[in-house]
């Protein structure tokens, strides 16, 4: 029983990691309709920023967290202006362009850092919750996931900027007619999504190490989470990452990790049959 409970608690950590990795994608894909194949590499950029900040420059982890957001967001803005902006009306071209970008980023990282690098654990040690041992860092990850989610929801629901974005996704031309500069808003939204990916990289870095190859693992997982939760729904992403994270951990407890993944995938396919827009789909035009 205790094992089962600890599996559930561990699952929470996996869900939080999944949610953090997904948030950035949800914004870029859900709001801007861009399939960003370089999402994993943006996570990698964030992780390398963290590595440079903490291990080379000896900056405290929490500041590195902010730095990784800022740097990746700037990088995202640059990407948006130079590449994505010209391809908005062509979804498949963005897939290819971002794929090309992912190759380029990965190769540059490989040439500079051929080996994987260490980022020190910022909050080592464990605490015991009624016999279940939980790493301190996991608690930090879960709190970060909740904070980021809340912040993002507030940002999009209650600020002027967020409402503008909502308006653009609803009806771009109409919004433009109202005198809102959609182009700037696109750049900022993309930058925000990329920045969130950077934070994901920063949070992953202490547990997985930082290498040029680290991003690809998260790409498919993040996309699955978005699909299950429903595009555009932040709450949906929270739920789906919890379901997938918990499902995987609990199933892995009884069988093994690969079968857990396969079973979750089959469940998703069947889900799609009956709820093609995901669990928390918003009514779209």
């Amino acid at each position, binding site marked *: 029983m205790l094992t089962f409970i600890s599996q559930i608690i561990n699952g929470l950590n996996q869900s939080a990691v999944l949610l953090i990795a997904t948030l950035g994608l949800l914004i870029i894909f859900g709001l801007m309709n861009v399939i960003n194949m370089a999402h994993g590499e943006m996570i990698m950029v964030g992780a390398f920023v963290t590595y440079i900040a903490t291990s080379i420059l000896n900056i405290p982890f929490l500041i590195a967290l902010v730095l990784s957001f800022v740097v990746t967001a700037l990088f995202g803005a640059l990407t948006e202006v130079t590449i994505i902006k010209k391809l908005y009306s062509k979804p498949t071209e963005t897939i290819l362009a971002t794929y090309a970008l992912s190759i380029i980023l990965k190769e540059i990282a490989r040439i*500079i850092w051929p080996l994987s690098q260490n980022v020190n654990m910022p909050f080592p040690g*464990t605490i015991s919750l009624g016999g279940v041992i939980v790493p301190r860092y996991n608690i930090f990850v879960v709190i970060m996931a909740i904070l980021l989610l809340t912040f993002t929801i507030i940002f999009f629901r209650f600020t002027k900027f967020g409402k503008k974005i909502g308006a653009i996704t609803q009806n771009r031309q109409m919004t433009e007619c109202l005198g809102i500069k959609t182009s700037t808003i696109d750049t900022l939204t993309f930058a925000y999504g990329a920045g969130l990916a950077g934070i994901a990289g920063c949070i992953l870095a202490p*547990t997985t190490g930082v290498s040029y190859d680290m991003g690809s693992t998260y790409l498919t997982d993040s996309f699955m989470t978005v699909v299950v939760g429903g595009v555009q729904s932040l709450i949906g992403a929270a739920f789906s990452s919890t379901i997938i994270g918990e499902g995987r951990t609990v199933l892995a*407890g009884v069988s093994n990790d690969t079968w857990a993944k396969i079973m979750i995938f089959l469940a998703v396919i069947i889900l799609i049959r009956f709820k093609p827009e995901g669990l928390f789909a918003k009514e779209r035009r």
Partner: protein
Amino acid sequence: MKMKRIIALAASMVLMASLAGCGSTSSASAAKSSGSSDSSSDGDPIKVGVLFSATGSTAINEKTMTNACIMAFDEINAAGGINGRKIEYIHEDYASDPAKCTEKIKKLIEQDEVVATVGCCTSASRQATLTTLKDDDSLLIYPTYTEGEEIHPNVIYVGAMPNQQAVDFIPYLLQNIGKKVFLVGSDYVFPKTCNKEAKALIEQNGGEVVGEEYAPLGQTDFSTICNKIKQSGADLVYSTVVGESNVSFYKDYKQYGLNPETCPICTISIEESVLQAIGTEYSEGNYASMPYFSSLDAPASKEFVDKYNKKFNDGTVVTVLTESAYSSCYLLAEALKKVDDPTDTDALIKAFNGLEFDAPQGKIKVDDYNHCTWVYSRFAKIHDGKFDIIYSSDKAIRPEPWPAVLYPQYKDTNFMPDWDDPICYPQ
């Protein structure tokens, strides 16, 4: 209209490139049959292939192997080459893809006409070359430690066989740490095969296997496995987790409250390159078994590490794979010195039998019969982010591609079935 020119250019490029790249000769037959007489004249360089990934996911391990080969061949050339002839090495990148590996070994053998190739890192890539090696009658020197249970007549295995890493290591662990062993590995052929032998050895030495788990390759979350380890009450974890997954494994291990002091991870698949990514705090107190550690306190080893670090300042570090690739090149050079005609593959393979070399790890020797190499058995306790060597065998240990503990029937036949037994290699 500018566009048109670009397109025309691109279209003609593909035609030109494919023709130019293919070489102009129309002699379709393999290189072996022709030109052997004139190629043995003095002064012509002997061509050797170096086949390691420079891109893709396993480049993380293979870059240092490429470096080692460059270093070894440069040294051999500086020392006068092979009976007065220089070695010309040709590096090809197979991008961590076995299908590309097949393509590249064909290119090396049939176009560049190399006499032998040092290369491949994963078993998948090595096996992808086997058909070609046999058809084109060429030789591969394979430096990586491997799972055994395969001996190909055209391959020399310089890396350790599982028995060389396990036969001293497991009894030591059972005596000094505890009897209950939990086996963890990555989900593929190397860990599963090694663990089969490990299980037999554990039982033979009075230990007990209390669990066995495999994580998908590239797994980054080991919480479930850590939970299972905790639950099993194991005294030690015997690990065959490979590559970057080790970082997450070692970190999660301690994070989830398992203590290397009381239940260490004892691995046969970790290198210095991964160790630095784990960090001192999380690797502390765990054990590893390898034929060579770069911390080895011997003059030859120190010199080797110094030379490497001086020559390559590209972020890579010396690992067992570096050392093994380096030795492979020297073994090849020694074998080449022994044959009259380097293009005579049969003679070259025969020249390897019983060949010795003073490697950085000590004197190693290619077995007289089964194409594997006698290497040392060493194990180390990880301290302060370095391997502190606690045991080193007196001399190199005999390789058992089919370990005696599992296959007693091959004990008298050099630990391998007959060469034409279909079990010997994938045919």
